[in-house]
Structure formats: structure tokens, C-alpha cells
């Protein structure tokens, strides 16, 4: 279930390897290019094969999975998905996850963009302290915060609630999102804001009607990035969402995997994994270009 997240992180070195031969020339670089192609092909197989195998297995009947793990299914068992969705309650977990993510993504983008806008465009005493405070949050391992976080959320009466998890997700996503969007807002032309000031717009009108639409590529990039990250989040819901009815997908899947050890319904387990992965895959495939465009726009000019 962590595969898509791993891919986003590993994509960067792959891109670097791909570009290296372009800079050089001659026989050496041709060999280099060939090697790179082989490495990349191997990489692609290593990433794609488990995924394909998972999807294929999700369509097999249980005896088939154990007796002939490498063959294609004799007959597609769509029933596996139905059982995973209803009996294993993956459908329920799916909607829990969507609900939490809808709140946390909207919150993350709103709060981060407002903070980043101010940090990028308004000089005030202590601005750098605030900015580096957020950046420092990037380096803080979430494991260290887990115990105090549990008590904090519990004291607030938010343990096991959607809104509690949403708040924690937002806080968890702020550092990088603010860091990124600050750089992004700095690239936007000053004059557009000044033109809006002269047109009589208030700071809120400028932000919501002018700057936010201009920052759309950055917001989309951060939306996708945080979607992938928050979708794959396991540790936080595990600690903060003890109510079985409100489990998120990652928790639910873990729960299911443990349970399947006793029930021997491997088909449903693989179907559940497939269901879990599909949204991230869809988002990534659909928005990959925009993600790259947004990330590089910030990186090059920021």
C-alpha cells in the first residue's frame, strides 16, 4: 500500500539518471545511455510486476492462489471485490478515508496558502523565525511526537473523531506545503498585486480573487502531493483512530491482513489492496504532468 508513495520519491533519481547522458557526448555516453535504459527497464519491472501480480491474484479463487500462484485466473472472480467491499468493510474504510482527506486536503491548502502568501510577500519582524519554524517542522520525526500527540488529541476530546484526525493531518502537512508555496508565491509578479490594490481590492479580495487563482499550479501540485501522502498515512490513524467503524483504509487493510490469517480469504485481501491502490494510481496518472510542472515551477524560480 506504500508503493505509490515510494514511486513519487524515487522518480527524482530516475529522472537524473535519464538526463545525464544528454550532457555528455561520444562513445562513453552511448554506453551510459544503454546501461541507463537497462537499469530503468529493470526498475520498471520491479515496480510494475508486484502490482500486476496483485491485481491478477485479486481475481483468483482461494485454492488457485495457493496452488498456481503464477498463472492467470481460470475465471475472473469479481466476487472477491464484492466481498472485500462489503464483508471486509473496505467500502466503509474507503469512505472514511475520503471523508478525512476531503477535510484535511482543503484545510491544508487553505491554511498553507494563506501562511505562505503572507510569508512570501509581506515583510514583518520575525518573518524568518516563523518561516524557519515551519521548515524545522519538516525535520521532526513524527514518531517522537506520537505519545504527546495522543494525549493532546485525547485531552481535546478529539480522539477517534474525523475532525481530530483532520486537524492532525493538516498540522502534519503544513511544513512542506508552506515551504513549497512560499517559494511559489515569491515567483508571482508583484505588479499584479499592486494593480489589484489600485483597483481598490482589500487584502482578502487580492488573496482569494487574484493570488490564489495565480497560484493554481502550485496548489494542484501540493494537493496531489498531500493526497498521496495522506492517503498512505498509517501511523497517525493507527494511534488516533481506535474506533473500528472509523478506520481508514490503511488501518483497515492491516486489520484485514491480520484477520485473513484465520479466515483464509486471500482473494478478498488482494482485492482490498487493489481497491486501496487504485485512487492513488488514478490521481498520479492523471495529474503527473501537473505535479511535475508545479514542482519545477517552484524549484526553478523560487
Amino acid at each position, binding site marked *: 500500500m506504500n508503493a505509490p508513495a515510494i514511486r513519487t520519491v524515487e522518480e527524482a533519481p530516475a529522472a537524473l539518471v535519464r538526463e545525464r547522458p544528454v550532457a555528455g557526448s561520444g562513445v562513453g555516453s552511448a554506453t551510459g545511455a544503454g546501461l541507463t535504459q537497462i537499469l530503468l527497464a529493470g526498475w520498471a519491472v520491479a515496480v510494475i510486476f508486484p502490482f500486476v501480480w496483485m491485481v491478477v491474484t485479486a481475481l483468483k479463487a482461494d485454492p488457485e492462489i495457493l496452488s498456481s500462484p503464477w498463472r492467470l485466473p481460470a475465471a475472473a472472480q469479481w466476487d472477491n471485490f464484492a466481498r472485500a467491499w462489503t464483508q471486509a468493510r473496505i467500502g466503509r474504510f474507503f469512505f472514511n478515508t475520503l471523508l478525512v482527506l476531503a477535510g484535511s486536503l482543503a484545510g491544508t491548502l487553505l491554511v498553507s496558502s494563506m501562511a505562505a502568501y503572507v510569508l512570501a510577500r509581506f515583510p514583518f519582524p520575525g518573518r524568518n523565525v516563523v518561516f524557519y519554524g515551519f521548515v524545522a517542522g519538516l525535520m521532526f520525526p513524527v514518531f517522537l511526537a506520537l505519545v504527546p500527540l495522543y494525549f493532546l488529541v485525547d485531552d481535546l476530546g478529539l480522539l477517534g473523531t474525523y475532525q481530530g484526525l483532520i486537524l492532525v493531518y493538516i498540522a502534519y502537512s503544513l511544513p512542506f506545503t508552506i515551504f513549497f508555496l512560499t517559494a511559489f508565491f515569491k515567483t508571482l509578479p508583484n*505588479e*499584479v498585486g499592486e494593480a489589484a490594490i*489600485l*483597483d481598490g481590492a482589500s487584502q482578502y479580495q487580492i488573496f482569494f480573487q*487574484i493570488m490564489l487563482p495565480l497560484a493554481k499550479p502550485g496548489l494542484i501540485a501540493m494537493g496531489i502531493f498531500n493526497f498521496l501522502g495522506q492517503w498512505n498515512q498509517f501511523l497517525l490513524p493507527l494511534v488516533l483512530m481506535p474506533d473500528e467503524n472509523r478506520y481508514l483504509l490503511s488501518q483497515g487493510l492491516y486489520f484485514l491482513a491480520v484477520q485473513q490469517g484465520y479466515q483464509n480469504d486471500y482473494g478478498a485481501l488482494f482485492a482490498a489492496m487493489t481497491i486501496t491502490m487504485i485512487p492513488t494510481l488514478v490521481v498520479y496518472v492523471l495529474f503527473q504532468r501537473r505535479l511535475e510542472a508545479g514542482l519545477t515551477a517552484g524549484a526553478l524560480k523560487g
Partner: protein
Amino acid sequence: MSTIQFDAATRQFPGSARPAVDGLNLDIADGEFLVLVGPSGCGKSTSLRMLAGLEEVDEGAIRIGDREVTHLPPKERDIAMVFQNYALYPHMSVADNMGFALKIAGMSKDEIRTRVKEAAAILDLGEFLDRKPKALSGGQRQRVAMGRAIVRNPQAFLMDEPLSNLDAKLRVQTRTQIAALQRRLGTTTVYVTHDQVEAMTMGDRVAVLKDGLLQQVGTPRDLYDRPDNVFVGGFIGSPAMNLVRVVLTTDGAQLGERPVPMKRGVRAALATEGAEDATLGFRPESVEVVAPGQGFPFEVVVVEELGSDSFAYGNLVGHGQEDGTTLLTVRVDARRPPAKGEVIHLRIREGEEHVFSRRTGQRLSAD
């Protein structure tokens, strides 16, 4: 429509040694087209931004009409500005760009539409109203920026080098259009440019700035004929005024074989200063070709034939120039230009010489 007054307005940027704008005094009449011109870093854009309210005023005051606006926020000043890069809102259509200020002001949709249509008709933008700025050419974007200013019907237009992103031909064309539009609307306009040709052709009056200080303000003709100091003399006019260091004699200055006569008042002024030399300025068109011995010898290095005019660039034979490297420029007969390398003899037409003090740089006037 309104008058605009800068009253000793000063802007000192934090951490900077001297003020960006230093005690600027300027009275702009109702309906006037005033151009602020100067080299980069002279404070012309800062002055404009102070008027717009985008820059603080550290000392002095700014008035629009009868109202003191020195510390008012921009939106309470009732002015519209055209930016160098136009600063259009990229995500809005042309119509929305032009109507944004009206929408913010809470005007009804119907009225916004009517006013945007009117402005679009004036600027010939009618067919582009639904397009995004991205889908427009540079000239069209410039007109949208103008349109955004005129729909508001403000007290004053502020323009910050609005033509510098256009190509040369379009710039000349748009220059005329903006000047004509301003005459037609009669709105007080402050226009910033570094291009003295734009300043001369567009402005009712031109204010020349340098190092944050106002050098001179006057009609283009005034600035050209009677520059207050060496800087204005050299800055206004294209090709530029020739500036030569001359040693003073009893009745004038020595230039070539014959002394250039100077008016008594000028000589007296130089004498009170105790000066032994002065800066002599003359426009390229202020010379005439004379027989050898009647003027100063001039060695032609390059000849530029422009059709209607010809300019000869060269050196004064046996005479040091103001900075030693720039060639002098003279206008010669377009039909019979001198050859390269030829030495011709020139004389400055009487009364067309400008004499500047070398100590203060000020123009010394006979009257």
C-alpha cells in the same frame, strides 16, 4: 480630473545613503500630461509610486485636487495606473480585467458591462473581450491595461513606462495613440519614461530627474532651448547636445581658430565665479559649414544618412573634448554629406550656444 501637487515629497529607502526622491516640488495642472523622465535610478518611478500610494512618503506632502493624500491608501486616491508589464490578471478575460475595479466598487453588472464596452470601443478591443490576456499580442495587452485604467474614469492616470515592452514600430504608433487619447479624455496624466523622445513627443510638460532631484520642469521646447544645466542639456535631444570644455578668453571662449563670442552677461557670470574655463554646449543642428579659418576644424569619422537628415560624427581637431571619448555630432546637408576622414570647418550659429559653469553645471544666461 484634478490637479496634482508634490510638496517637498521625499522618500528615503531604509538602508540607503541618499533619498530616492529628494524634496520633489511639482505642480501638475488639471488635464495636463506631465512626463517624468530621467536615467534609471533617478527616482522617477518612485515618485510615481508615491503618488499612487504604493510607496510611503517620508517627508513632505502629496495633494490630488484639494485633498491631501500623503498617507491615504491607494484605493482612496481615485487614480488608475498602467504598469510597465501591464500587470493584467492572467486568469480573467479582458472584460473581467477591465471591470475588476468596478466590481470591487460594487457597481451593478449591467453598468460594468456598459462601461467596459465603451472603453473597449475607444481602444478597439471589442472583439477581444472574452479572451484571456495570454491570447493577446503585446500591443493588445497594452491596450487592455489602458482600458482597465479608463473604465474607472479616475482623477488621474499614472503610467509607468507603458511602452517599453513593445517593439520599436508599435511603440511609436502607441505613443501617438496614448497622447491623443489623453487629449480626448482630458484626464490629468503622469507618465514615467526613461526615453527622452517619448518625453518630448508626449508631454505637455516634462520633468527631468536625476539622483532623486528634480533638475528642470518645462515644456519640451523650454527644455530643448534653455536647459537649466549640463545634465538636462545632454539628456534632452537626440542626437545629444555636444558638450566641449573651452578655455575662456577676454570676449568669449577659444574653440578652434576663432573665439566663440559670449554675451556680456555670461562673461560677467563666469568672471564672478572666477572661472578660467566653461562647458560649451551646442546642438547638432546649431552649426553651419564655413570656409577654413572662419570656424573650428572638425574631422569626420562616421556619417549617418537618415534620408531627411545626415549626421556627421567626429572630433574637434586639436581640442580636448569633455570626456575625451564621445564623438561630437553635427547635422550636415543631407544632399551633400562630407566624406569620412574629411576635415570640415564649422561655426556655431550666433545665439545657439549654451554656456554652463564647470563648477556648478548650471547654465549661464545672458538675461
